[in-house]
């Protein structure tokens, strides 16, 4: 459903993405791991339309979306749950979720409550705090809210940037389970950027390792888990090699 071909993105003079290519099938979970500053967030941002790639193309369901704006891309069913959650902290939990449905609000006012209830089923805790300002939630709760807000846009492709950042292992497990559930129940395609390589590889079908703006390794996540380079650098392998 998504083809990323030889994408180059710059931040000013900084050449961040140096020819990224990969393909995604419908209903797949694709994990992207890699060291800090490798360009993972920039890649998601480029797909979402926040950043413009200078070269290369991004095709989504047969349509070139590489030059389109964020707002247009959301409408097509691509949703980015950004790094560090980016909750609207002055607005209530429920309002945050409602705004997730902004782009389809006019057509689906009546079914909105149903969608909100569906999110509450996934995250029962959010229901108990629906009137609380988002800014007063704990980190884990905010992360759930960020995912729920993303789901409210009815995404076909959901991109999550480090959803496990700063969360307790049990909650990380919950979140990974929910991603799996989304794929099973709604056929949502998911790109997951993670520092928690173990958790990411466990839930993903395929994965890649990004290094300095390039994809260094790509394959089935099972294979990656056994790959010595990945084991050493990201899974706490025996040898003391420094991640390249």
């Amino acid at each position, binding site marked *: 459903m998504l083809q990323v071909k030889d994408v180059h993105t710059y931040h000013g003079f900084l050449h961040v993405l140096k020819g990224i290519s990969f393909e995604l099938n419908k209903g797949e979970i694709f994990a992207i791991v890699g060291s800090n500053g490798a360009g993972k967030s920039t890649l998601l941002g480029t797909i*979402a339309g*926040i950043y413009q790639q200078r070269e290369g193309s991004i095709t989504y369901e047969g349509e070139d979306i590489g030059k389109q704006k*964020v*707002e247009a891309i*959301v*409408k097509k069913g691509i*949703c*980015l749950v*950004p790094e560090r959650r*980016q*909750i*609207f*902290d*002055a*607005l209530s939990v429920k*309002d945050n979720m*409602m*705004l*997730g449905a*902004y*782009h389809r*609000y006019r057509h689906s006012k009546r079914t909105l409550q149903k969608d909100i209830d569906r999110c509450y089923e996934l995250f029962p805790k959010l229901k108990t705090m629906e009137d609380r300002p988002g800014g007063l939630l704990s980190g884990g709760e905010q992360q759930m809210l960020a995912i729920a*807000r993303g789901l409210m*846009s009815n995404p076909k492709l959901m991109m999550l940037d480090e959803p496990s950042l700063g969360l307790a292992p049990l909650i990380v497990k919950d979140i990974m389970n929910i991603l799996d559930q989304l794929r099973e129940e709604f056929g949502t395609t998911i790109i997951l950027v993670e520092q928690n390589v173990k958790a990411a590889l466990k839930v993903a079908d395929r994965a890649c390792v990004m290094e300095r703006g390039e994809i260094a390794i790509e394959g089935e996540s099972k294979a990656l888990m056994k790959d010595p380079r990945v084991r050493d650098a990201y899974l706490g392998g025996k040898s003391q090699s420094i991640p390249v």
Partner: protein
Amino acid sequence: MELTSQFIQLIFSGLTIGSIYALVAIGFVITYNITGVLNFAQGDFAMLGAMLAITFVSMDIPMGLGIILSIGIVVLVGGIFERTAIYPARNASLPTLIIITLGVAIAIRGLAILIWGTQPRSLPPFTENNPINVLNAVLLPQSIWAVGISVVSLIAMHYFFNKTFIGKAVTACVVNRSAARLMGIKPEWMSFISIAVSAGLGAIAGIIIAPISGATYEMGLMIGMKAFVAAVIGGLTNAPAAIIGAFMIGILESFTEGLWTSGYKDAISFALLLLVLFFMPNGLFAKATGKRV
């Protein structure tokens, strides 16, 4: 006049003028929060509203209709102003944008001279204006209209931004612009709404003050400046504080005028502005954390 009645009298007129400043100050705050622009044409929207209403009434259009038409036209002017002057320059620096709004303000004033001349004009009071006696002080019904309408408008604004879906989207844009874009919210559209709404608030202010102190082509300058002072008192981002600031200035002015001399009433507001800027640059009511959006 005995002291208490004079005191009450000055409070009345302070509240009346304060309510005008409050409306325009809220326009400043809304515009600044959402677009990051200090719109110095804000006061001139008040003048436009007043002049249009006076014109419509002189054309024998029923007053209520004339007022609504005037507000509508000013909202439209605000929208056009945003599209033609602010939007194309949205990536420019703050000083550039301020200069643009100052330029537009001068242009609006010039246009007003061409259309309405330099003579002061006035709007009849909204209802019969027989003074009401309150503890020996004189209260004009138009003052009640002024305070009442601005309070209702401010409540309506509060409702709009906190309770309606589109208002929440605007708020989301203020809180976190990049996240709002990820939801498909267009900041440019929000900026259009905010400036149009602020223009409407300005128009209301001008229309309710016109029966009390008349209208001239240059009235916007002082109203805009005073409202700016009120907005600064609120740290430019805090709407309730700006409203309190507006009433403070109104009352301060009316007391200066009543107990001292009208010559100093403008000076007093600007002295207040300087004091606030020197000692509390984030506004009188800034929170300790002082997060500026």
